[in-house]
């Protein structure tokens, strides 16, 4: 409701001499930081998100298997237990898994797995696995953990091709966590620029931009996705496809931000200090950059943060409709799309694990956004 939540310092601060609290003199961002620190849930969320992004960054190192690693012997294998105590009750310092033997139920053709307690494979750290490029820099075969060869470790079970679900979740995070970030980033920039122009200059330009925004917003997202996906040229590498998807999200997403920015501009541009700057002959660009933007940039950061979870969910929805990324490239949307088949829910429920991660990510982003918003609101106690 209030027009200018952040920029205006409390009146009393101006007449208070040095003796008063330091906080009054801290920068806007420091204030936000101080308030944010008090928001416990947001802080925990930030830590979790940080961890998730770290996992995404080091995914190849953390995942015991690569994206294309599969094994027809271990199709639809359930999650395996890391054990410390063996069948004879003996304790082992190093956790281990038993050898997994597979067969088929002759009646239902279901894959059945039995553990062979004769054969143990110990967990190894910095185990040798398939070769990959560490952070895109150098080739290596060292992965954080694995079990002794030829043992297999499927912490969260396997999928229909016998691929390790845990590895796929970890590797899928690279796409799923970055798409929304990049997408929101692009819409942020577009929204900011167009919204600023629209709000600051007003007039016919504003009308035009508003109409355009109205037009874009009038489209139900579904046909827009479909049409844009259809417009993606055939035979493109996964990176390019990824880029297209990001673009689609950004093209749909920027309008919201542009509206917010415009609204803020309109309410701010008649403030005394802006008028004063104008009268003093300050250029438009400088007024926008120096006087207007700082007034609500934090608000935009919050709006942006809160837009991310929507994009994560949108990515899964796109995969559901078969419009997004396709296996063997992996995103959480791809994993959920596989999980949603009735036979998987009925027979192989562990394939729903990725859902947990999606929920966790969406929730933490929401809490983070909430925390930021509370922190950015100076009227909050």
């Amino acid at each position: 409701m209030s027009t200018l939540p952040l920029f205006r310092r409390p009146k009393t601060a101006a007449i208070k001499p040095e003796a008063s609290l330091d906080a009054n003199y801290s920068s806007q961002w420091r204030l936000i930081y101080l308030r944010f620190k008090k928001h416990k849930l947001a802080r925990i969320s930030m830590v979790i998100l940080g961890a998730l992004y770290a996992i995404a960054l080091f995914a190849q190192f953390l995942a015991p298997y690569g994206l294309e690693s599969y094994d027809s012997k271990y199709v639809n294998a359930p999650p395996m237990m890391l054990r410390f105590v063996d069948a004879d009750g003996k304790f082992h310092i190093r956790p281990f898994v038993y050898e997994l033997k597979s067969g088929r139920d002759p009646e239902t053709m279901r894959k059945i797995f039995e553990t062979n307690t004769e054969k143990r494979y110990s967990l190894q750290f910095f185990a040798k696995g398939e070769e990959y490029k560490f952070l895109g820099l150098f080739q290596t075969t060292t992965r954080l953990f694995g079990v002794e060869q030829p043992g297999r470790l499927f912490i969260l079970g396997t999928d229909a091709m016998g691929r390790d679900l845990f590895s796929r979740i970890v590797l899928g995070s690279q796409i799923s966590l970055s798409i929304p970030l990049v997408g929101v980033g692009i819409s942020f920039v577009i929204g900011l620029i167009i919204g600023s122009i629209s709000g600051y200059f007003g007039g016919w330009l504003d009308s035009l931009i508003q109409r355009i925004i109205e037009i874009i917003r009038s489209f139900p997202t579904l046909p827009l996705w479909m049409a844009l996906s259809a417009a993606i040229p055939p035979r493109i590498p996964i990176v390019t496809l990824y880029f297209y998807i990001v673009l689609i999200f950004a093209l749909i997403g920027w309008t919201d931000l542009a509206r917010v920015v415009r609204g803020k501009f309109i309410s701010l541009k008649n403030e005394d200090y802006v008028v004063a700057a104008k009268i003093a002959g300050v250029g438009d660009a400088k007024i926008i950059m120096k006087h207007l933007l700082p007034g609500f940039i934090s608000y935009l950061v919050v709006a942006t943060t809160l837009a991310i979870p929507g994009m994560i969910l949108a990515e899964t929805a796109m995969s559901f409709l078969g419009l997004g990324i396709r296996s063997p490239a992996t995103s959480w949307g791809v994993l959920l799309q596989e999980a949603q088949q009735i036979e998987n829910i009925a027979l192989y429920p562990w394939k729903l694990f990725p859902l947990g991660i999606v929920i966790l990510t969406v929730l933490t982003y929401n809490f983070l956004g909430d925390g930021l918003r509370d922190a950015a609101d100076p009227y909050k106690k």
Partner: protein
Amino acid sequence: MKKSRILLALLIVISVIAAGCTNNNTAKPSASKTPAETKAVQETPVATNAGTGSKEAPVLATLVGESKLPPLAERLPSASDIMVEDVVDELGQYGGDWTMSWTGPGDKWAVGMPTEEALFRFNKEGTAIEPNVAKSYEVNADSTVFTIHLREGMKWSDGMPFTADDVLFYWEHMLTKETFGKKIYDAYYSVDPVTGEKALAEVKKVNDYTFTVTHKYPSVQFLERVAIDNKWFFAPAHFQKTILPEFVGEAKTAEIAKDWGFEDPKAFLVDTGYYFWLHQKIPTLRAWVATTDPNSDQFIMERNPYYWKTDSEGHQLPYMDRIVVTKIQDPSQGLLGTLAGDYNLKSFEAKDFTVLKENEAKGNYRVLLWTQPSWTSAGVQLNQTTEDLKLRQLFQDIRFREALSVGVDRNEVTEIVTNGLAEPIQASVPEGVFGYQEGWAQQWAQFDPDRANKLLDEIGLTKRDKDGFRTFPDGSDLTLTDIESSTNADTFLELLKKYYEDLGLKFNVKVVESGAFNDMKYANQVPMNTEAISVTNVAFRPDALVPLRVITPWFGQYGLYSETGGKEGVKPEGDVAQILDLWNQLKASSSKEDISRLANEIYKIHMKNQWQIGYAGPTPVPVAVSNNMRNVPEKLVMADETRGIGQAHPAQFYLKQ
């Protein structure tokens, strides 16, 4: 005002909650069975036992009692002409619904095939035809004159008599005038064995129950081909006369079309002339007749009171009262519905087998495994006429096909793709189906990557690009692109990609919408596709094996060449030309033995060339049948030519009470 609104809102919430509660309580004991049970109560007293009780369904008996329907004897054909349908297990009881699902009126054949009544139908083995709507037939020695007898006293579902006039009307005023969007079927042409010239047959009425079809040249396979191409060689003349422009004028037809909800009179005539079983107003000879708008959420067909078949004890068929078809939007809903016992007979894909089997007891159904004449459940066809000439040359090289075949481990494919339900064999005619060849299943079926690489090197694909993929000898990019219209084969293609790329062959998959796929097929833009050949006998239906039209991916533009008489497309050469030659001989031959021999030759050429490469044998078709549904055969070959479930004669299915 305000208060009342809040009150209303509150009421709705409470009712929703209340509904939730009551539902949960009542649902526990037997939610899914309720409809069946109420039916049971209603029907039991009049349920028939063999030899005793009424010869007609209680519903109809009631109507007869109320004089709304003539008695049974008047509705059936004359006693000697009644068709007696053999039951699979036992004589049945009347009553109940056959519940199934479809994706809507676009899924016309989901109800079309099981209810179909052809003039001649295939026997249980699918090897020869037998009379169905027709009572009997005679053929002259050189197979040029076919005399066909109809059943006296047989009636359309509205009680009007069915006679030779209906056949002739169809022939004269519909088929030859092409009113319903189909060209005159190939079956009606005979071929001059010398010149290859085609001549249209003549159809003549002999009397009310007899007509003849006369060919200029011998047409040995005429009845089999009619049984596939033009199953119903008749139409209700008394009805068609009221809508065809020839009789009522263009304007009137257009008006009627509007009335029926059709904007376009042509579309109207297609629907009424070809997809007639979907329309309640059109009389049919089928066991069940449409009673609702096919666009509604539930399409219902009810028993035809004039149906002309009985069981051996003279009980008029069908046993079941109705077919109730629920519209679904996703195949998983059909599966879930079956698991919950909502549908009592439905076929599935092989991948659903395990979940169906595990829930047999809970869903109170049994899973039957029917077979299909498919050559493979996981294979690819290489377009022999693909646009890119270098690629075309490669595809035509038999060594390349062998390399692709031996370069893939079939054991892994069957494990992952077919859930262990298929054999790790080559694409080939399955045993028991016409055209089976000894040893074909094992041809190039052994996993041998060394040989594959050797073959590829031999062809000259020795150069590699910077990513290690083979290039053409001139160094240009070599990419195999598979075009798909659905994501069904995703897992298989992922696996294939891995194996092909291990051989150094770059492989891409592109999924397009089915309409676009169709367009691409015509534009010769489909180099590879996973479509599987599935044919009962090439002599009956040549489409997949003989390049006559643009249909099957492997022969690509050869088909267009035949279709346009050589104006467009690619001229067939070598073995493909030989296939066409054999086919022409087959068409003109005058004995069944010749036909068999020639057909077999065609299969042999296919075996030699292996244009379709298969990595797993065919999978069975799981069919979930509710436990109270009886007379469903344990074994059946599901083929389009023999009308799928229709082949099991659904009129004699019954629900045990």
